[in-house]
Protein backbone atom coordinates (compact mmCIF):
# COMPACT_ATOMS: atom_id res chain seq x y z
CA UNK A 1 0.00 0.00 0.00
CA UNK A 2 2.86 2.33 0.86
CA UNK A 3 4.37 1.55 -2.53
CA UNK A 4 1.07 2.39 -4.18
CA UNK A 5 1.01 5.85 -2.61
CA UNK A 6 4.65 6.39 -3.54
CA UNK A 7 3.91 5.65 -7.20
CA UNK A 8 0.77 7.80 -7.21
CA UNK A 9 2.67 10.67 -5.62
CA UNK A 10 5.52 10.42 -8.08
CA UNK A 11 3.21 10.29 -11.10
CA UNK A 12 1.05 13.17 -9.88
CA UNK A 13 4.16 15.24 -9.32
CA UNK A 14 5.37 14.42 -12.78
CA UNK A 15 2.03 15.56 -14.27
CA UNK A 16 2.12 18.85 -12.42
CA UNK A 17 5.81 19.67 -12.76
CA UNK A 18 5.52 19.41 -16.52
CA UNK A 19 3.07 21.64 -18.39
CA UNK A 20 1.04 18.62 -19.56
CA UNK A 21 -1.62 18.59 -16.86
CA UNK A 22 -2.03 22.38 -16.84
CA UNK A 23 -2.41 22.64 -20.60
CA UNK A 24 -4.85 19.74 -20.89
CA UNK A 25 -6.94 20.96 -17.95
CA UNK A 26 -6.96 24.57 -19.16
CA UNK A 27 -8.00 23.71 -22.71
CA UNK A 28 -10.61 21.32 -21.41
CA UNK A 29 -12.12 23.99 -19.15
CA UNK A 30 -12.06 26.67 -21.85
CA UNK A 31 -13.93 24.36 -24.22
CA UNK A 32 -16.47 23.16 -21.68
CA UNK A 33 -17.02 26.73 -20.45
CA UNK A 34 -17.64 27.89 -23.99
CA UNK A 35 -20.17 25.15 -24.60
CA UNK A 36 -21.87 25.83 -21.26
CA UNK A 37 -22.20 29.51 -22.06
CA UNK A 38 -23.65 28.76 -25.49
CA UNK A 39 -26.07 26.27 -24.00
CA UNK A 40 -27.29 28.81 -21.47
CA UNK A 41 -27.58 31.55 -24.11
CA UNK A 42 -29.58 29.26 -26.35
CA UNK A 43 -31.83 28.23 -23.47
CA UNK A 44 -32.40 31.91 -22.65
CA UNK A 45 -33.48 32.62 -26.19
CA UNK A 46 -35.83 29.68 -26.33
CA UNK A 47 -37.33 30.59 -22.94
CA UNK A 48 -37.86 34.17 -24.04
CA UNK A 49 -39.60 33.04 -27.20
CA UNK A 50 -41.73 30.65 -25.24
CA UNK A 51 -42.78 33.38 -22.82
CA UNK A 52 -43.91 35.60 -25.69
CA UNK A 53 -45.82 32.79 -27.31
CA UNK A 54 -49.59 33.28 -27.08
CA UNK A 55 -50.10 29.55 -26.64
CA UNK A 56 -48.27 29.37 -23.31
CA UNK A 57 -44.83 28.00 -22.51
CA UNK A 58 -43.97 24.39 -23.34
CA UNK A 59 -42.24 22.23 -20.75
CA UNK A 60 -38.73 23.68 -20.68
CA UNK A 61 -36.29 21.86 -18.42
CA UNK A 62 -32.90 23.54 -17.93
CA UNK A 63 -31.15 20.30 -16.91
CA UNK A 64 -32.46 18.59 -20.02
CA UNK A 65 -31.69 21.52 -22.30
CA UNK A 66 -28.31 22.68 -21.00
CA UNK A 67 -26.58 20.03 -18.92
CA UNK A 68 -27.40 16.95 -20.92
CA UNK A 69 -25.89 18.26 -24.17
CA UNK A 70 -22.98 19.63 -22.14
CA UNK A 71 -22.22 16.17 -20.74
CA UNK A 72 -22.28 14.86 -24.29
CA UNK A 73 -19.80 17.49 -25.37
CA UNK A 74 -17.55 16.93 -22.38
CA UNK A 75 -17.35 13.25 -23.24
CA UNK A 76 -16.12 14.21 -26.71
CA UNK A 77 -13.43 16.47 -25.21
CA UNK A 78 -12.40 13.55 -23.05
CA UNK A 79 -12.09 11.40 -26.13
CA UNK A 80 -9.66 13.96 -27.55
CA UNK A 81 -7.74 14.75 -24.37
CA UNK A 82 -7.38 11.47 -22.50
CA UNK A 83 -4.85 9.90 -24.89
CA UNK A 84 -2.66 12.96 -24.28
CA UNK A 85 -2.74 12.35 -20.55
CA UNK A 86 -2.14 8.62 -20.76
CA UNK A 87 0.44 8.44 -23.53
CA UNK A 88 3.44 9.10 -21.30
CA UNK A 89 2.59 6.69 -18.49
CA UNK A 90 4.72 3.75 -19.64
CA UNK A 91 6.12 4.98 -22.96
CA UNK A 92 8.23 7.63 -21.30
CA UNK A 93 9.66 5.18 -18.78
CA UNK A 94 10.58 2.82 -21.57
CA UNK A 95 12.14 5.49 -23.73
CA UNK A 96 14.19 6.97 -20.89
CA UNK A 97 15.09 3.51 -19.58
CA UNK A 98 13.78 4.37 -16.12
CA UNK A 99 11.61 1.28 -16.33
CA UNK A 100 14.74 -0.79 -15.66
CA UNK A 101 15.16 0.78 -12.24
CA UNK A 102 11.43 0.87 -11.53
CA UNK A 103 11.16 -2.86 -12.19
CA UNK A 104 14.13 -3.71 -10.00
CA UNK A 105 12.66 -1.90 -7.01
CA UNK A 106 10.70 -4.12 -4.66
CA UNK A 107 7.29 -3.18 -6.07
CA UNK A 108 4.88 -5.61 -7.66
CA UNK A 109 3.97 -4.88 -11.28
CA UNK A 110 0.31 -4.72 -10.36
CA UNK A 111 1.01 -2.01 -7.79
CA UNK A 112 2.97 0.03 -10.33
CA UNK A 113 0.15 -0.26 -12.85
CA UNK A 114 -2.56 0.61 -10.34
CA UNK A 115 -0.52 3.54 -9.03
CA UNK A 116 -0.03 4.98 -12.49
CA UNK A 117 -3.68 4.40 -13.32
CA UNK A 118 -4.89 6.02 -10.11
CA UNK A 119 -2.70 9.07 -10.62
CA UNK A 120 -4.08 9.64 -14.10
CA UNK A 121 -7.63 9.18 -12.84
CA UNK A 122 -6.71 11.73 -10.16
CA UNK A 123 -5.69 14.26 -12.80
CA UNK A 124 -8.93 13.52 -14.63
CA UNK A 125 -10.97 14.17 -11.48
CA UNK A 126 -9.11 17.43 -10.90
CA UNK A 127 -9.99 18.32 -14.48
CA UNK A 128 -13.64 17.45 -14.00
CA UNK A 129 -14.15 19.16 -10.61
CA UNK A 130 -14.24 22.79 -11.84
CA UNK A 131 -17.01 21.93 -14.29
CA UNK A 132 -19.26 21.36 -11.28
CA UNK A 133 -19.43 25.13 -11.18
CA UNK A 134 -21.91 24.99 -14.07
CA UNK A 135 -24.65 23.03 -12.25
CA UNK A 136 -23.98 25.26 -9.20
CA UNK A 137 -24.62 28.37 -11.30
CA UNK A 138 -27.81 26.87 -12.63
CA UNK A 139 -28.82 26.00 -9.09
CA UNK A 140 -28.30 29.61 -8.02
CA UNK A 141 -30.47 31.14 -10.74
CA UNK A 142 -32.90 28.38 -11.58
CA UNK A 143 -34.18 25.02 -10.51
CA UNK A 144 -31.77 22.17 -10.90
CA UNK A 145 -32.65 18.50 -10.96
CA UNK A 146 -29.97 17.00 -8.77
CA UNK A 147 -30.46 13.36 -9.84
CA UNK A 148 -29.43 13.58 -13.49
CA UNK A 149 -26.47 15.79 -12.56
CA UNK A 150 -25.09 13.24 -10.13
CA UNK A 151 -25.64 10.31 -12.48
CA UNK A 152 -24.27 12.39 -15.37
CA UNK A 153 -21.04 12.93 -13.47
CA UNK A 154 -20.91 9.27 -12.47
CA UNK A 155 -21.23 8.40 -16.16
CA UNK A 156 -18.47 10.83 -17.14
CA UNK A 157 -16.23 9.48 -14.39
CA UNK A 158 -16.71 5.87 -15.46
CA UNK A 159 -16.23 6.74 -19.10
CA UNK A 160 -13.09 8.78 -18.48
CA UNK A 161 -11.66 6.03 -16.28
CA UNK A 162 -12.21 3.54 -19.10
CA UNK A 163 -10.48 5.85 -21.55
CA UNK A 164 -7.53 6.10 -19.19
CA UNK A 165 -7.35 2.32 -18.77
CA UNK A 166 -7.26 1.87 -22.55
CA UNK A 167 -4.63 4.60 -22.92
CA UNK A 168 -2.52 3.02 -20.19
CA UNK A 169 -2.56 -0.29 -22.04
CA UNK A 170 -1.43 1.22 -25.34
CA UNK A 171 1.23 3.20 -23.54
CA UNK A 172 2.64 -0.06 -22.22
CA UNK A 173 2.97 -1.42 -25.75
CA UNK A 174 5.31 1.16 -27.23
CA UNK A 175 8.12 3.44 -26.21
CA UNK A 176 6.91 6.17 -28.53
CA UNK A 177 4.43 8.53 -26.90
CA UNK A 178 2.92 9.75 -30.18
CA UNK A 179 2.28 6.18 -31.30
CA UNK A 180 0.64 5.43 -27.95
CA UNK A 181 -1.58 8.51 -28.24
CA UNK A 182 -2.59 7.84 -31.85
CA UNK A 183 -3.47 4.20 -31.23
CA UNK A 184 -5.44 5.03 -28.07
CA UNK A 185 -7.31 7.79 -29.85
CA UNK A 186 -8.06 5.55 -32.81
CA UNK A 187 -9.38 2.74 -30.65
CA UNK A 188 -11.46 5.07 -28.50
CA UNK A 189 -13.03 6.53 -31.62
CA UNK A 190 -13.66 3.05 -32.95
CA UNK A 191 -15.39 2.03 -29.72
CA UNK A 192 -17.35 5.27 -29.93
CA UNK A 193 -18.80 4.66 -33.38
CA UNK A 194 -18.82 0.87 -33.50
CA UNK A 195 -22.57 0.86 -32.86
CA UNK A 196 -23.24 2.66 -36.15
CA UNK A 197 -22.44 -0.38 -38.20
CA UNK A 198 -25.15 -2.33 -36.39
CA UNK A 199 -27.61 -1.01 -38.96
CA UNK A 200 -25.92 -3.08 -41.64
CA UNK A 201 -25.46 -6.23 -39.60
CA UNK A 202 -27.84 -9.00 -38.66
CA UNK A 203 -29.87 -8.28 -35.56
CA UNK A 204 -27.73 -10.47 -33.30
CA UNK A 205 -24.39 -9.07 -34.42
CA UNK A 206 -25.95 -5.63 -34.55
CA UNK A 207 -27.06 -5.65 -30.94
CA UNK A 208 -23.68 -7.05 -29.94
CA UNK A 209 -21.92 -4.18 -31.70
CA UNK A 210 -24.29 -1.67 -30.10
CA UNK A 211 -23.54 -3.06 -26.68
CA UNK A 212 -19.83 -2.74 -27.38
CA UNK A 213 -20.09 0.96 -28.08
CA UNK A 214 -18.95 3.41 -25.42
CA UNK A 215 -21.51 5.93 -26.59
CA UNK A 216 -24.41 3.55 -26.09
CA UNK A 217 -23.66 3.22 -22.38
CA UNK A 218 -23.24 6.89 -21.48
CA UNK A 219 -26.69 7.89 -22.70
CA UNK A 220 -28.70 6.50 -19.81
CA UNK A 221 -26.50 8.20 -17.20
CA UNK A 222 -27.23 11.68 -18.51
CA UNK A 223 -30.95 10.90 -18.36
CA UNK A 224 -30.60 10.17 -14.66
CA UNK A 225 -30.74 6.40 -14.98
CA UNK A 226 -28.06 4.18 -13.47
CA UNK A 227 -28.34 0.84 -15.20
CA UNK A 228 -26.15 -1.94 -13.83
CA UNK A 229 -25.44 -3.12 -17.38
CA UNK A 230 -23.80 0.23 -18.15
CA UNK A 231 -21.81 0.30 -14.90
CA UNK A 232 -20.69 -3.29 -15.48
CA UNK A 233 -19.69 -2.44 -19.04
CA UNK A 234 -17.33 0.32 -17.93
CA UNK A 235 -15.94 -1.65 -15.01
CA UNK A 236 -15.28 -4.60 -17.30
CA UNK A 237 -13.63 -2.32 -19.80
CA UNK A 238 -11.32 -0.96 -17.10
CA UNK A 239 -10.45 -4.34 -15.61
CA UNK A 240 -9.76 -5.85 -19.05
CA UNK A 241 -7.46 -3.00 -20.03
CA UNK A 242 -5.54 -3.13 -16.74
CA UNK A 243 -5.20 -6.89 -17.10
CA UNK A 244 -3.88 -6.52 -20.65
CA UNK A 245 -1.41 -3.90 -19.42
CA UNK A 246 -0.12 -6.33 -16.85
CA UNK A 247 0.27 -9.08 -19.45
CA UNK A 248 2.01 -6.72 -21.86
CA UNK A 249 4.56 -5.69 -19.24
CA UNK A 250 5.11 -9.29 -18.23
CA UNK A 251 5.64 -10.35 -21.83
CA UNK A 252 8.51 -7.86 -22.15
CA UNK A 253 10.35 -9.97 -19.64
CA UNK A 254 10.11 -13.37 -21.20
CA UNK A 255 10.36 -12.07 -24.75
CA UNK A 256 13.77 -10.65 -24.01
Amino acid at each position, binding site marked *: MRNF*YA*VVKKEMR*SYFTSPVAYVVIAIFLILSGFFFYNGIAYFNMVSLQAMQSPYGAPDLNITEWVLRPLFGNISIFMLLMMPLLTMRLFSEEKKEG*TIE*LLFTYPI*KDSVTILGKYASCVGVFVIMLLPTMLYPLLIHKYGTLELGPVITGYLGLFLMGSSFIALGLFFSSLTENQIVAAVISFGFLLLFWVIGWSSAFASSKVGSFLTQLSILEHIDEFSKGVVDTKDVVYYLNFIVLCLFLTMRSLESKRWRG
Partner: protein
Amino acid sequence: MIEVENLTKYYGDRPAIDNITFRVEKGEILGFLGPNGAGKTTTMRILAGFFPPTSGTARVAGYDVVNNSIEVRRRIGYMPETIPLYKDMRVKEYLEFVAEVKGIPRKRRKSKIEKAMKECGTTEVYHRLIGKLSKGFQQRVGLAQALLHDPEVLILDEPTIGLDPKQIIEIRQLIKSLAGERTIILSTHILPEVSMTCQRVIIIHEGKILAMDTPENLNKQLQKLTQILLQVEGPPEEVSRQLGKVDGVVKVTRREEVSTGVWNYIVESSKDLDIRKELVQTLFSHQWGLLEFRPLGMSLEDIFVKLVTTEER
Protein backbone atom coordinates in the same frame (compact mmCIF):
# COMPACT_ATOMS: atom_id res chain seq x y z
CA MET B 1 25.58 -14.88 -1.16
CA ILE B 2 25.03 -15.18 -4.89
CA GLU B 3 24.75 -18.55 -6.58
CA VAL B 4 24.39 -18.76 -10.33
CA GLU B 5 23.93 -22.13 -11.98
CA ASN B 6 23.85 -22.90 -15.70
CA LEU B 7 22.34 -19.54 -16.44
CA THR B 8 21.33 -19.06 -20.07
CA LYS B 9 19.48 -16.21 -21.72
CA TYR B 10 18.46 -16.06 -25.35
CA TYR B 11 17.50 -12.94 -27.27
CA GLY B 12 15.61 -14.44 -30.17
CA ASP B 13 17.81 -17.37 -31.20
CA ARG B 14 21.06 -15.69 -30.18
CA PRO B 15 22.37 -16.56 -26.73
CA ALA B 16 23.40 -13.49 -24.75
CA ILE B 17 24.79 -15.66 -22.00
CA ASP B 18 25.38 -19.34 -22.34
CA ASN B 19 25.49 -21.73 -19.41
CA ILE B 20 27.16 -19.49 -16.85
CA THR B 21 27.93 -20.83 -13.37
CA PHE B 22 29.60 -18.93 -10.56
CA ARG B 23 29.33 -18.09 -6.86
CA VAL B 24 30.06 -14.95 -4.94
CA GLU B 25 30.75 -15.14 -1.22
CA LYS B 26 29.58 -12.60 1.32
CA GLY B 27 31.72 -9.47 1.42
CA GLU B 28 33.46 -10.17 -1.84
CA ILE B 29 33.98 -7.72 -4.71
CA LEU B 30 33.60 -9.54 -7.99
CA GLY B 31 34.50 -7.95 -11.30
CA PHE B 32 32.86 -8.85 -14.57
CA LEU B 33 35.26 -8.21 -17.35
CA GLY B 34 34.48 -8.46 -21.01
CA PRO B 35 34.20 -6.57 -24.25
CA ASN B 36 30.98 -4.77 -25.11
CA GLY B 37 28.17 -7.20 -25.81
CA ALA B 38 29.80 -10.04 -23.87
CA GLY B 39 26.76 -10.61 -21.65
CA LYS B 40 27.73 -8.61 -18.58
CA THR B 41 24.62 -6.44 -18.53
CA THR B 42 22.36 -9.40 -19.24
CA THR B 43 23.76 -11.32 -16.27
CA MET B 44 23.34 -8.32 -14.01
CA ARG B 45 19.80 -7.66 -15.16
CA ILE B 46 18.86 -11.23 -14.37
CA LEU B 47 20.42 -10.96 -10.91
CA ALA B 48 18.56 -7.69 -10.32
CA GLY B 49 15.27 -9.35 -11.23
CA PHE B 50 14.62 -7.20 -14.30
CA PHE B 51 13.98 -10.21 -16.49
CA PRO B 52 14.13 -13.95 -15.94
CA PRO B 53 16.71 -16.23 -17.56
CA THR B 54 15.75 -18.60 -20.38
CA SER B 55 17.07 -21.48 -18.29
CA GLY B 56 19.20 -22.07 -15.24
CA THR B 57 18.84 -20.63 -11.76
CA ALA B 58 20.21 -17.66 -9.89
CA ARG B 59 19.87 -17.15 -6.15
CA VAL B 60 20.65 -14.02 -4.19
CA ALA B 61 20.88 -14.40 -0.41
CA GLY B 62 19.11 -17.74 -0.80
CA TYR B 63 16.15 -16.36 -2.75
CA ASP B 64 15.47 -17.36 -6.33
CA VAL B 65 15.46 -14.36 -8.68
CA VAL B 66 12.43 -15.62 -10.58
CA ASN B 67 10.18 -17.11 -7.92
CA ASN B 68 11.10 -14.74 -5.11
CA SER B 69 11.85 -11.69 -7.17
CA ILE B 70 10.49 -9.17 -4.65
CA GLU B 71 12.59 -10.63 -1.80
CA VAL B 72 15.67 -10.47 -4.02
CA ARG B 73 14.94 -6.89 -5.01
CA ARG B 74 14.68 -5.92 -1.33
CA ARG B 75 18.22 -7.12 -0.79
CA ILE B 76 19.97 -5.62 -3.78
CA GLY B 77 20.96 -2.17 -4.89
CA TYR B 78 21.18 -1.96 -8.64
CA MET B 79 22.76 0.71 -10.77
CA PRO B 80 22.16 0.16 -14.50
CA GLU B 81 24.71 1.16 -17.10
CA THR B 82 22.87 4.16 -18.51
CA ILE B 83 21.78 5.51 -15.09
CA PRO B 84 18.17 6.05 -16.05
CA LEU B 85 16.83 8.65 -13.62
CA TYR B 86 13.67 10.76 -13.69
CA LYS B 87 15.03 13.96 -15.19
CA ASP B 88 12.09 16.10 -14.17
CA MET B 89 12.50 15.28 -10.48
CA ARG B 90 14.75 16.94 -7.96
CA VAL B 91 17.41 14.79 -6.29
CA LYS B 92 15.56 15.14 -3.00
CA GLU B 93 12.19 14.11 -4.46
CA TYR B 94 13.72 11.22 -6.32
CA LEU B 95 15.57 9.79 -3.33
CA GLU B 96 12.45 10.19 -1.18
CA PHE B 97 10.50 8.24 -3.78
CA VAL B 98 13.12 5.50 -3.88
CA ALA B 99 13.24 5.35 -0.08
CA GLU B 100 9.49 4.95 -0.01
CA VAL B 101 9.27 2.18 -2.61
CA LYS B 102 12.20 0.38 -1.03
CA GLY B 103 10.18 0.25 2.14
CA ILE B 104 12.34 2.31 4.48
CA PRO B 105 10.17 3.33 7.44
CA ARG B 106 9.17 6.99 7.47
CA LYS B 107 11.16 7.78 10.62
CA ARG B 108 14.44 6.49 9.25
CA ARG B 109 13.98 7.78 5.72
CA LYS B 110 15.60 11.16 6.26
CA SER B 111 18.71 9.83 7.99
CA LYS B 112 19.14 7.09 5.36
CA ILE B 113 18.91 9.59 2.53
CA GLU B 114 21.41 11.86 4.26
CA LYS B 115 23.80 8.97 4.80
CA ALA B 116 23.65 7.78 1.20
CA MET B 117 24.10 11.29 -0.12
CA LYS B 118 27.08 11.89 2.11
CA GLU B 119 28.69 8.63 0.99
CA CYS B 120 28.19 9.48 -2.67
CA GLY B 121 28.97 13.17 -2.35
CA THR B 122 25.66 14.48 -3.66
CA THR B 123 24.69 16.66 -0.69
CA GLU B 124 25.43 19.86 -2.60
CA VAL B 125 22.99 19.05 -5.41
CA TYR B 126 20.19 17.91 -3.09
CA HIS B 127 17.68 20.49 -4.33
CA ARG B 128 18.58 20.48 -8.00
CA LEU B 129 16.76 18.94 -10.95
CA ILE B 130 18.33 15.63 -11.93
CA GLY B 131 18.10 16.51 -15.63
CA LYS B 132 20.30 19.57 -15.07
CA LEU B 133 23.09 17.71 -13.25
CA SER B 134 26.41 16.83 -14.86
CA LYS B 135 27.05 13.24 -15.84
CA GLY B 136 29.29 12.73 -12.81
CA PHE B 137 26.63 13.86 -10.38
CA GLN B 138 23.93 11.81 -12.11
CA GLN B 139 26.20 8.82 -11.70
CA ARG B 140 26.50 9.55 -7.99
CA VAL B 141 22.76 9.95 -7.62
CA GLY B 142 22.47 6.59 -9.36
CA LEU B 143 24.84 5.11 -6.83
CA ALA B 144 23.04 6.82 -3.94
CA GLN B 145 19.70 5.30 -4.95
CA ALA B 146 21.34 1.87 -5.09
CA LEU B 147 22.86 2.29 -1.62
CA LEU B 148 19.83 3.87 -0.02
CA HIS B 149 18.40 0.89 1.83
CA ASP B 150 21.77 -0.58 2.88
CA PRO B 151 21.42 -3.58 0.56
CA GLU B 152 23.40 -6.73 1.22
CA VAL B 153 24.29 -6.96 -2.44
CA LEU B 154 25.30 -4.17 -4.79
CA ILE B 155 25.13 -4.70 -8.53
CA LEU B 156 26.89 -1.95 -10.43
CA ASP B 157 26.92 -1.99 -14.21
CA GLU B 158 29.88 0.01 -15.53
CA PRO B 159 29.98 2.33 -12.52
CA THR B 160 32.78 4.55 -13.83
CA ILE B 161 31.87 4.88 -17.48
CA GLY B 162 31.74 8.44 -18.77
CA LEU B 163 33.44 10.03 -15.78
CA ASP B 164 36.54 12.16 -15.74
CA PRO B 165 39.73 10.65 -14.21
CA LYS B 166 39.29 12.39 -10.86
CA GLN B 167 35.71 11.21 -10.53
CA ILE B 168 36.73 7.69 -11.55
CA ILE B 169 39.23 7.55 -8.70
CA GLU B 170 36.62 8.86 -6.26
CA ILE B 171 34.01 6.34 -7.32
CA ARG B 172 36.54 3.49 -7.11
CA GLN B 173 37.49 4.52 -3.60
CA LEU B 174 33.84 4.72 -2.69
CA ILE B 175 33.23 1.20 -4.02
CA LYS B 176 36.20 -0.12 -2.08
CA SER B 177 35.02 1.58 1.09
CA LEU B 178 31.62 -0.06 0.69
CA ALA B 179 33.10 -3.53 0.63
CA GLY B 180 33.32 -5.56 3.78
CA GLU B 181 29.76 -5.97 4.93
CA ARG B 182 28.38 -5.75 1.41
CA THR B 183 28.81 -8.08 -1.52
CA ILE B 184 29.55 -6.19 -4.71
CA ILE B 185 29.38 -7.24 -8.34
CA LEU B 186 30.62 -4.71 -10.83
CA SER B 187 31.15 -4.89 -14.53
CA THR B 188 33.59 -3.04 -16.66
CA HIS B 189 35.51 -3.23 -19.86
CA ILE B 190 38.32 -1.14 -18.44
CA LEU B 191 40.99 -3.53 -17.24
CA PRO B 192 42.94 -1.59 -14.61
CA GLU B 193 39.67 -1.00 -12.81
CA VAL B 194 39.32 -4.68 -12.10
CA SER B 195 42.81 -5.17 -10.75
CA MET B 196 42.36 -2.07 -8.60
CA THR B 197 38.99 -2.79 -7.03
CA CYS B 198 38.13 -6.45 -7.33
CA GLN B 199 39.19 -9.47 -5.34
CA ARG B 200 38.01 -11.86 -8.01
CA VAL B 201 37.54 -11.53 -11.74
CA ILE B 202 35.28 -13.28 -14.19
CA ILE B 203 36.31 -12.82 -17.78
CA ILE B 204 33.30 -13.24 -19.98
CA HIS B 205 33.21 -13.28 -23.74
CA GLU B 206 30.34 -14.00 -26.12
CA GLY B 207 28.21 -15.19 -23.25
CA LYS B 208 30.72 -17.70 -21.88
CA ILE B 209 33.01 -17.56 -18.89
CA LEU B 210 36.60 -17.77 -20.08
CA ALA B 211 38.37 -17.45 -16.75
CA MET B 212 37.51 -16.92 -13.13
CA ASP B 213 40.16 -16.18 -10.49
CA THR B 214 41.92 -13.47 -8.52
CA PRO B 215 43.74 -10.93 -10.69
CA GLU B 216 47.11 -12.19 -9.32
CA ASN B 217 46.36 -15.83 -10.06
CA LEU B 218 45.25 -14.99 -13.56
CA ASN B 219 48.57 -13.31 -14.02
CA LYS B 220 50.46 -16.35 -12.77
CA GLN B 221 48.48 -18.91 -14.69
CA LEU B 222 48.81 -17.31 -18.04
CA GLN B 223 52.38 -16.30 -17.75
CA LYS B 224 54.25 -19.47 -18.62
CA LEU B 225 57.40 -17.65 -19.69
CA THR B 226 59.26 -14.75 -18.19
CA GLN B 227 60.06 -12.03 -20.65
CA ILE B 228 62.90 -9.57 -20.28
CA LEU B 229 63.47 -6.55 -22.45
CA LEU B 230 67.07 -5.54 -23.12
CA GLN B 231 68.41 -2.53 -24.93
CA VAL B 232 71.96 -3.24 -26.00
CA GLU B 233 74.58 -1.36 -27.98
CA GLY B 234 76.53 -3.84 -30.07
CA PRO B 235 76.53 -5.95 -33.28
CA PRO B 236 72.95 -7.27 -33.49
CA GLU B 237 73.58 -10.81 -34.82
CA GLU B 238 76.37 -11.42 -32.37
CA VAL B 239 74.37 -10.12 -29.41
CA SER B 240 71.40 -12.34 -30.27
CA ARG B 241 73.65 -15.37 -30.63
CA GLN B 242 75.48 -14.80 -27.35
CA LEU B 243 72.25 -14.13 -25.40
CA GLY B 244 70.79 -17.31 -26.82
CA LYS B 245 73.71 -19.27 -25.41
CA VAL B 246 72.86 -18.35 -21.80
CA ASP B 247 71.48 -21.29 -19.80
CA GLY B 248 67.69 -21.33 -19.52
CA VAL B 249 66.97 -18.95 -22.41
CA VAL B 250 64.20 -20.29 -24.62
CA LYS B 251 64.09 -17.66 -27.27
CA VAL B 252 65.69 -14.34 -28.22
CA THR B 253 63.81 -11.95 -30.46
CA ARG B 254 65.46 -8.94 -31.98
CA ARG B 255 63.07 -6.01 -32.09
CA GLU B 256 63.50 -2.54 -33.51
CA GLU B 257 66.63 -0.45 -33.78
CA VAL B 258 66.36 2.40 -31.29
CA SER B 259 69.31 4.42 -32.54
CA THR B 260 72.42 3.56 -34.55
CA GLY B 261 73.84 0.33 -33.24
CA VAL B 262 71.35 0.13 -30.35
CA TRP B 263 68.70 -2.59 -30.59
CA ASN B 264 65.91 -3.86 -28.42
CA TYR B 265 65.80 -7.57 -27.66
CA ILE B 266 63.25 -9.69 -25.90
CA VAL B 267 64.60 -12.69 -24.05
CA GLU B 268 62.19 -15.40 -22.95
CA SER B 269 63.05 -17.96 -20.32
CA SER B 270 61.09 -20.56 -18.43
CA LYS B 271 59.07 -19.13 -15.60
CA ASP B 272 60.85 -20.65 -12.65
CA LEU B 273 64.41 -19.67 -13.68
CA ASP B 274 66.04 -16.39 -12.81
CA ILE B 275 68.60 -15.70 -15.52
CA ARG B 276 69.01 -11.97 -15.04
CA LYS B 277 72.48 -12.21 -13.55
CA GLU B 278 73.80 -14.47 -16.33
CA LEU B 279 72.41 -12.22 -19.04
CA VAL B 280 74.12 -9.15 -17.66
CA GLN B 281 77.41 -11.00 -17.18
CA THR B 282 77.35 -12.16 -20.81
CA LEU B 283 76.87 -8.62 -22.04
CA PHE B 284 79.64 -7.26 -19.81
CA SER B 285 82.11 -9.94 -20.85
CA HIS B 286 81.70 -8.80 -24.47
CA GLN B 287 81.88 -5.14 -23.42
CA TRP B 288 78.56 -4.29 -25.06
CA GLY B 289 76.68 -1.36 -23.62
CA LEU B 290 73.53 -2.19 -21.66
CA LEU B 291 71.11 0.76 -21.87
CA GLU B 292 67.92 -0.75 -20.54
CA PHE B 293 66.98 -3.89 -18.65
CA ARG B 294 63.34 -4.48 -17.80
CA PRO B 295 61.34 -7.60 -16.96
CA LEU B 296 58.06 -7.59 -18.86
CA GLY B 297 55.10 -8.59 -16.70
CA MET B 298 51.94 -9.63 -18.39
CA SER B 299 49.26 -7.10 -17.58
CA LEU B 300 45.66 -8.04 -17.14
CA GLU B 301 45.18 -6.35 -20.45
CA ASP B 302 47.46 -8.84 -22.20
CA ILE B 303 45.75 -11.73 -20.49
CA PHE B 304 42.39 -10.46 -21.55
CA VAL B 305 43.41 -9.95 -25.16
CA LYS B 306 45.12 -13.35 -25.16
CA LEU B 307 42.07 -15.12 -23.79
CA VAL B 308 39.64 -13.39 -26.07
CA THR B 309 41.71 -13.79 -29.20
CA THR B 310 42.63 -17.43 -28.63
CA GLU B 311 38.96 -18.13 -28.19
CA GLU B 312 38.25 -16.48 -31.51
CA ARG B 313 40.90 -18.45 -33.28
